[in-house]
């Protein structure tokens, strides 16, 4: 029964069958089976995504929103169909609330420029946390430098959870206009209490942006139930292609926000003297959008929804429990972060091996993990570690792979003894 769990209301989650959907998983690394534990950086792609993108290019490709000819119309329909699929995936109230960007990073930068400079006032503050990816830190530092917006940082507890008392303290004076935090840490695996954060932010007049780059992959996201105001995620971590990200925001916010990038497709009227912006969402989609990537993302969403987000979450919960047990038993290994509510991301350090030496050893036996600071340098400083290795799971990760990682870590410690 390795890796097979039967979630409520679903058929058995057959990880062996799922793995057959991912061509790369049958590749060998230095003659060893690939054990891909870096899905948190970027996930592998199922055949359904690869084929949908290929089919689009072979049969149905043209630019969107431009041509009055058949191919352009069908490409436009495919692109807008992807928008509807994303709206369904997030349970957005209106598909026009879905803005396609190049990545999560681009989506956050869009908010930082447009909402940050166009709506927030210079004296207001943005509240982030110590466990943000650089993508949800640097844009706010840039906003501070350019616009005079204060930047506040909520602390993370020793367990790796968001310190809610500190969040409350930093919201208390009502100066925070926007709270921007991760929905799931890319280092600690911590899932933040999004609905509670939305209540706290709103009680003090602040909006809430959630960086769902990790979370949207691991559990069902319902932006209306969470009560947040902005949600971003990226295609390539959700088994889809690179080059496409999503910004969801409430319609009234998008309507109040000025355009970010200017160019074709984002206007309704242009003269040499000026322009009138197009309605939402075109207002934020200047230039030729990621059309093929949107089709790939649509296929990825269909793929995970076909399996069921609840089933994926149950499978990963099972893997997380297994990993906690097995990794905790490795002598000399320190796990960074012990949040109650967490997903399948584990950062760790061995007492006698540097993260890069460890990653080189693991690579030699087919295991791909990330090493370094995972685009979260301040968080590593917070936990007083130079660098860590990170194993992150996907829906194709098996119990056997978790056990193999634990075994290899034990042997690695002996190697460096």
């Amino acid at each position, binding site marked *: 029964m390795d890796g097979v769990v039967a979630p409520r209301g679903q058929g058995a989650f057959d990880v062996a069958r799922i793995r057959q959907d991912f061509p790369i998983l049958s590749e060998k690394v230095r003659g060893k089976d690939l054990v891909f534990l870096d899905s948190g950086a970027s996930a592998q792609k199922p055949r359904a995504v690869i084929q949908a993108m290929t089919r689009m290019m072979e049969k149905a490709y043209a630019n969107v929103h431009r041509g009055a000819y058949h191919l352009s119309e069908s490409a436009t329909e495919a692109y807008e169909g992807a928008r509807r699929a994303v709206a369904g995936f997030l349970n957005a109230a209106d598909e026009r609330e879905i803005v396609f960007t190049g990545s999560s990073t681009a989506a956050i930068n869009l908010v930082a420029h447009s909402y940050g400079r166009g709506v927030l006032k210079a004296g207001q503050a943005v509240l982030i946390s110590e466990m943000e990816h650089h993508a949800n830190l640097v844009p706010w530092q840039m906003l501070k430098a350019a616009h005079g917006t204060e930047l506040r940082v909520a602390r993370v507890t020793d367990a790796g959870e968001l310190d809610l008392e500190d969040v409350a303290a930093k919201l208390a004076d009502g100066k925070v206009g926007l709270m921007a935090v991760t929905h799931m840490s890319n280092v600690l695996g911590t899932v933040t209490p999004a609905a509670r954060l939305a209540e706290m932010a709103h009680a003090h007049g602040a909006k809430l942006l959630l960086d769902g780059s990790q979370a949207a992959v691991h559990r069902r996201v319902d932006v209306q139930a969470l009560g947040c105001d902005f949600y971003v995620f990226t295609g390539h971590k959700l088994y889809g292609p690179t080059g496409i990200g999503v910004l969801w925001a409430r319609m009234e916010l998008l309507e109040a926000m000025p355009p970010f990038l200017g160019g074709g497709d984002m206007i309704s009227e242009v003269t040499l003297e000026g322009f009138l912006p197009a309605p939402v969402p075109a207002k934020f989609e200047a230039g030729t959008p990621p059309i093929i990537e949107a089709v790939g993302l649509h296929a990825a969403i269909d793929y995970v929804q076909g399996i069921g987000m609840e089933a994926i979450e149950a499978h990963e919960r099972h893997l997380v429990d297994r990993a906690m047990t097995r990794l905790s038993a490795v002598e000399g290994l320190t796990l960074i972060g012990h949040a109650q509510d967490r997903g399948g991301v584990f950062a760790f350090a061995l007492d006698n091996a540097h993260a890069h*030496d460890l990653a*080189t050893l693991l690579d030699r*036996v087919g295991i791909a993990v990330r090493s370094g600071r995972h685009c979260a340098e301040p968080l590593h400083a917070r936990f007083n570690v130079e660098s860590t290795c990170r194993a992150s799971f996907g829906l194709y990760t098996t119990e056997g792979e978790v056990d193999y990682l634990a075994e290899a870590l034990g042997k690695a410690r002996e190697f460096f003894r």
Partner: protein
Amino acid sequence: MFDDLRDLYQEVILDHGRKPRNFRRLEEADREGRGDNPMCGDRMQLWVKLAPDGRLADVAFQGKGCAISMASASLMTETVRGKTQEEARALAEKFRELAMTGTCPDCGGALEDEMERLQALGGVHEFPSRVKCATLAWHTLNAALDNADKEASSE
């Protein structure tokens, strides 16, 4: 499980990685350099004391990093001690080639013995992402000899 990695992690590397030589701050140094691998988080500070004739009388370093970068820095401080600055720079160039290709065709001649010693790090060329770990110390030495204010980086 990891036996074939003994080419990369030879005993001399593990030994110098665990117990780096000349791992200390050099008071009254004539040259000082800093090195940084931002992707890895490796950081290094290096000091050089020059003899009246300009030779490297003493070289010491402090820093944090992986076994490869620590061992490379440790071996380097031992190797360049007593060398002229020109010889130290020549070694840096030859070492760079060794780390990137695994061989150094021009390494015969004056500095042959020194390069023989550094050969232990040649295995790193099979690991492209780790080459910069091995070369960081040498970049830092060059920066120190230049007395440059800016940080060395082997990115």
